[in-house]
């Protein structure tokens, strides 16, 4: 569409397919076209109109910063459905903070899945950060309470909470999630400073219902888009940002500790059409 000031039928179809193949929802594609057509003869061409529309939907002015609490420790709470990349993203975030000279403590609050605690423990060793864990099967809320209390006592800067994967359709698991976040409040006098929902970039339209359901259960303040090193382009986050106002903050681009980047909306829009 470079250089065009009007959208012809053939270009429209091509653009539509590019967006749909990137997992942008049908509804959002229609909305994008409405907005481009409204600015029908955009002075700087269709490409500019498109970028402007997408930037607007992605909340161009919202911050990609991870929040910092008024008093330490800052608590970052991580949630999401099964297998999306929570534990690995937490390891990467812990590494990022450790590189910045911060003291990090991981709360091994996935007490359910086989070898979940072992997995996080190995990551803590590799990062060189602290970890608080209980026995498998223990109450995750108790792990969180102990972790945050320990962090306060030891003057730790950041606590990152790992939780078990859970389907947004399981109301009992969503209730458990609320209970675990309340444990942060009990220990720290306030809820988590940042609650990140991890999404798998290869997931289709279900990502939108995941975001909607998790947001109705807990105060999701940001998204981590993991596995963006796949050929999937994660277009569902456009709908999530536009409809629910939740910004993408971090992007996972591989399985190693340094495979985490701060989200860049312009780069993301470029990659949609790669």
């Amino acid at each position, binding site marked *: 569409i470079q250089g065009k000031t009007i959208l012809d039928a053939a270009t429209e179809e091509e653009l539509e397919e590019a967006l749909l193949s990137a997992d942008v929802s049908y509804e959002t594609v229609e909305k994008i076209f409405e907005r481009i057509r409204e600015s029908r003869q955009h002075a700087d061409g269709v490409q500019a109109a498109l970028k402007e529309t997408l930037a607007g939907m992605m909340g161009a002015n919202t911050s990609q910063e991870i929040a910092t609490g008024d008093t330490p420790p800052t608590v970052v709470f991580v949630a999401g459905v099964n297998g999306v990349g929570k534990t690995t993203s937490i390891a990467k975030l812990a590494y990022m903070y450790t590189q910045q000279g911060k003291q990090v403590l991981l709360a091994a609050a996935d007490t359910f899945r086989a070898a979940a605690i072992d*997995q996080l*423990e190995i990551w803590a060793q590799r990062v060189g950060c602290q970890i608080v864990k209980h026995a498998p099967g223990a109450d995750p809320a108790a792990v969180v309470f102990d972790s945050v209390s320990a962090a306060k006592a030891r003057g730790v800067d950041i606590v990152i909470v790992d939780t078990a994967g859970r389907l947004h*359709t399981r109301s009992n698991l969503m209730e458990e999630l609320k209970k675990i976040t309340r444990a942060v409040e009990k220990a720290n006098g306030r809820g988590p400073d940042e609650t990140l929902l991890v999404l798998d970039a290869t997931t289709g*339209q*279900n990502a939108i219902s995941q975001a909607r359901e998790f947001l109705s259960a807990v105060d999701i303040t940001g998204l981590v888009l993991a596995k963006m090193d*796949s050929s999937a382009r994660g277009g569902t986050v456009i709908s999530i940002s536009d409809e629910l106002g939740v910004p993408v903050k971090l992007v996972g681009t591989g399985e190693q500790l340094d495979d985490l980047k701060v989200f860049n909306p312009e780069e993301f829009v470029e990659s949609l059409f790669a």
Partner: protein
Amino acid sequence: SLTSRLQGVFDRLRGRGALTEKDVDEALKEVRRALLEADVNFKVVKEFVTHVREKAVGQDVLESLSAAQQVVKFVRDEMVALLGQSDPRLKGADSPPSVILLAGLNGAGKTTTAGKLALRMKSEGKRPLLVAADIHRPAAAKQLATLAEQVGVPVHTPLSSDTAVGVARDGVALARRESLDPVIVDLAGRQHADEDLMRELAEVSRATSPSEVLLVLDAMTGQDAVNTALEFGRHVPITGFVLTKMDADARGGAAISIRQVTGHPIKFVGISEKMDGLEPFHPDRMAGRILG
């Protein structure tokens, strides 16, 4: 729902007699929308809709609800035909032990499925061996060993210096010595663009001559399901699919895409995190779910 949206379309067309191409196109726009919203790959949707269009033009629009139901029934029947049979049987090797490889993207559910398959084989009177050939992910062997203990099946885990091929080979040798059959090999998750890991996968397959290579795919996978199925299929002889996390509310359109594009059967679906959460694939149930 698709039926109510189609009813709206046919309300506007009622009393016009036979469906013209333009009428059918309007109805098919709704079918297209439903399939895209269900994560069916956009190219597959195009082909599917073209196929449906050929059959639909010329039919009479009698009463709008029955016309809508007619189209939905027609689309559903085409979908069921496309999705194939319900056949959970796994092929055995000419001489034991049979080897089943589990491959797929990161986090798809391979390790969990390995445990479930082992339990299923055991309940069929077999003596399976689980092999923890994921040497990459932290605590992967421990995860599989824990599941093996839960289902009461032996497991072969790696020595510290092992390669994936080494572990897989040793597992098959152990099975042969101990008369265990089948050998269920759990492998590391990988992206199809990762050349080194795709090479590793191909090597494991060549070294173990599996009678089944199951691609484990998350039911909520979006448009990329086609790339995944095709690319993995280029490196190993995929014999079937397992669709996991079907207990979520994803419509599962990836099932249509991978069937259309590879022709391989969907053998099982994962319906929970528990070891008994594996069921044979049912095309009629899947079609109903995709159409919402």
